[in-house]
């Protein structure tokens, strides 16, 4: 075999398998007892896992907080949607699209590859900048990317429909597809974390000067981490478009960025397990809160309608984790390390 796995990666395979099992258990539980409307929630959760695991790849290992993932996800979603939607549908959805964008349709695979390619190239171009910046610079430029992409989405309504729905995208993926993608993502992210690149990124996060002195090419390492995480976001974007049938610019902005970052830091951004756990926990929490928001009747008491409760909870989670649990639930640990009897010295 061309790729030899190192010891950390072999252990990573075990951990990834355990996480995959968890994912499969959730899917299994759904297929046994779940109701149809929950399929959508489950699908959204899995898309979130793709994004948060992708965040873990760059932000988690390098400890540089990026805010642009929603933008890359949006780019991939629109690219895939525009390519795959049938011409007849686009005549209604995008009547004024320039450059013949509404005059072609491609197979789902080709569309996904195009979306993947476009996002990847943009990831490379932005990565060339990102890799040179440090600390708050990364955050600021990533916010800039987010704002720029969003204003282009809003501005070019002829291509992106802005805040209105771009509809008529064929439904290509189902739950089994996304389950496979999530499991693949978990394995890849874990293998990356334990790879020499992942180790180097984490070393730079701990001590940049020291890592440089050891001969680590920070620039190249960050660039690779950035591009790979962009590809995770692309996958999430494609999966999003291929399931929902309609997309709009609104979800690809700050709210989603905060949601996913809250998931990452709650779980603990240094571990893939943390990313998965954080996503699941916040999703469950938010579902409960969303239900409360509608003003349900609880033990005979009709609760008032409380708009904004879910957002409130999200903020509280972020502030609370930062103040009391800065390393998140998992800290530096991965799932298989939880089952070890005693940590080795």
């Amino acid at each position, binding site marked *: 075999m061309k790729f030899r796995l190192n010891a950390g990666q072999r252990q990573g395979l075990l951990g990834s398998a355990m996480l995959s099992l968890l994912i499969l258990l959730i899917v299994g539980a759904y297929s046994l007892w779940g109701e149809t409307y929950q399929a959508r929630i489950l699908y959204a959760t899995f898309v979130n896992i793709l994004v948060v695991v992708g965040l873990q790849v760059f932000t988690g290992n390098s400890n540089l907080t990026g805010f642009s993932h929603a933008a890359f996800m949006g780019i991939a979603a629109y690219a895939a949607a525009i390519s795959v939607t049938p011409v007849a549908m686009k005549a209604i959805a995008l009547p004024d699209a320039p450059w013949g964008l509404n005059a072609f349709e491609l197979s789902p695979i080709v569309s996904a590859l195009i979306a993947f390619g476009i996002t990847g190239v943009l990831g490379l171009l932005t990565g060339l900048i990102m890799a040179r910046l440090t600390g708050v610079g990364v955050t600021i*430029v990533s916010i800039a990317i987010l704002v720029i992409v969003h204003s282009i989405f809003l501005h070019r309504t002829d291509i992106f429909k802005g805040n209105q729905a771009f509809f008529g995208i064929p439904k290509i993926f189902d739950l089994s597809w996304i389950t496979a993608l999530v499991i693949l993502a978990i394995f890849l992210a874990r293998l990356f974390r334990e790879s020499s690149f992942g180790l180097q990124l984490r070393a730079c996060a701990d001590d940049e000067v020291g890592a440089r002195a050891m001969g680590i090419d920070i620039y190249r390492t960050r660039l690779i981490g950035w591009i790979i995480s962009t590809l995770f976001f692309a996958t999430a974007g494609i999966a999003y478009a291929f399931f929902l049938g309609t997309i709009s610019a609104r979800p690809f902005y700050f709210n989603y960025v905060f949601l996913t970052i809250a998931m990452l830091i709650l779980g603990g951004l240094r571990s893939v397990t943390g990313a998965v756990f954080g996503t699941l926990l916040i999703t469950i929490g938010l579902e409960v809160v969303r239900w409360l928001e509608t003003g349900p009747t609880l033990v005979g008491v009709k609760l008032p309608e409380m708009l904004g409760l879910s957002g409130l909870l999200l903020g509280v989670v972020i502030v609370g984790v930062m103040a009391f649990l800065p390393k998140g639930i998992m800290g530096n640990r991965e799932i298989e390390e939880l089952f070890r009897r005693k940590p080795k010295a």
Partner: protein
Amino acid sequence: MDYVIQQALNALSFGAEYALIALGLAIVFSIMGLVNFAHGEVIAFGGYSMVMISTVLTGNPWFLMIGVLVATVLASLTLERVAFRTIRGADLTTGLLTAFGVSIILQNLFLLLGSPRPIPATQFIFLDQTLTIGAIRISSLQIYEAITTVVAIGLLLTFLRKTTLGMAMRAAALDFEMVRLCGVRANRVIAGAFAISGLLAGLAAIFIMARRGSVDPHMGFNPVLTAFVACVIGGFGSLPGAVLGGFLLGITEVAVLVLLPQEYGGLAQAVVFTLVALVLIWRPDGILSPAQEKGDKV
């Protein structure tokens, strides 16, 4: 020519507003290294306090202005006490995310306790009148805004130069621990920074309310995002940098609006942010920030 003067005034007043908000961010950052994104919600709180005071007490605009300023100062101090004290001394990312978290909490509290829709509060609109001087038509609000900003900066400078607390704040930006070794209470310096920041937010709130005449939960977010950019351009933590960045941004924004064809108006923000990215690639620490050595012995 008249058109040029008019646009210059526009740039000046945009810039003044950004500078006010950017100063509020920079003064907190310079002392405790916190990018306080919740500053925007302090501004929004100013708007809500206006609604509350005018329904409960009085609609007198002058009284309301004082009320707004008091409310924003108190809000800012409360945030420091409740949210930011626990993360004092934490790294930049932790601070940034906490501030974002606080900002989300406040926005949703406004949503929960107020309304998702804009609530009208028009008491300050009288500030915004169109004056005609010769062939030039300008808004009185722009003039007030520019003057207030200049006065506020002047007062702030005097405070920082002449009072012991002001000196302690300047010193704390350089070496906080040494200031404490001189016997100045850390809480006092930080509370001072937040109080000033709140006051500046209050001024900004008054002008924003005078222009919009209504308050909604998210109204502070975009101005602070822009002010943040202004700080970045000027060099984070540098007070002159924040002012410079604010005015530069005002000029850029107006220039983009004037120079780009009408239909590209929606892209003004995109252009501004592209410029920011370019500035950061050129000078990663901002224009007015001295280059920092990494790995110095601390």
